[in-house]
């Protein structure tokens, strides 16, 4: 999976540079989040601006990260959701769980 990780100070940015976040590659995203948690990095921004398609496994990986971050008193926030990706969060009511921002800068400013 093409995932760019960058420490932005207030939070670590995970930029998912994939067209799809699905059952094929969401396990890797989950593993990378766990690695960051283990390093004590509990504030994450997952930027999905490159992602055109997300399935239930992709959503599941994000929920997993969200719960882990919260349990460590950190938080996982999202940015850059394309319209159809946003609809997936609405369909599964996850738009009420995640803080969702227009872009990375907005997400960063909220930490």
């Amino acid at each position, binding site marked *: 999976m093409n995932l760019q990780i960058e420490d932005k100070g207030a939070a670590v940015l995970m930029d998912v540079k994939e067209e799809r976040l699905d*059952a*094929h590659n969401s396990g890797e995203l989950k593993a990378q989040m766990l690695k960051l948690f283990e390093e004590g990095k509990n504030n994450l921004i997952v930027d999905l601006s490159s992602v055109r398609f997300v*399935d*239930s496994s992709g959503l599941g990986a994000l*929920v997993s990260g969200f719960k882990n971050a919260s349990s460590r008193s950190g938080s996982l926030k999202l940015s850059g959701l394309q319209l159809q990706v946003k609809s997936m969060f609405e*369909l*599964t009511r996850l738009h009420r769980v995640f803080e969702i921002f227009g872009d990375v800068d907005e997400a960063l400013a909220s930490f």
Partner: protein
Amino acid sequence: MSTDRVAVDVKVPNQTRYLCLIGHIGENIARALKHYGGDKEKLAYDLNLVLTEAVANAIRHANEGDPSKEVHIEITIADRQLVLRVYDHGQGFDIGQFAAPRHPMEEHGRGIYIIHNVMDEVVYRPTDDGYVLEMTKNL
């Protein structure tokens, strides 16, 4: 006004790397539809999604990740009905238990709910050598 008949039959190894191929075929079929009043790009996403969910389930839950097994998918359009069929070689499951939405904080269990949400009719039934998930959408 009846729809042109289109039939696509795909067999791929039991590996998640082929989800993308199957999903894209679903998208392309939506975009090629002749008579469709709705939003074709929404339908493209939905078919991509439903096929991805159903095939991922066949791969992980029924064929238990055995990469040497095969997944068989049928897509047919005729008489303003679109039918998706995903065949598996598993033990079956009680699909009725998974029709309702999960609690948002659950990590798993959204696939069947999503399929129900997008499609008009969903049936899971035994075949000669396994099961088939048959999903119909009226166009």
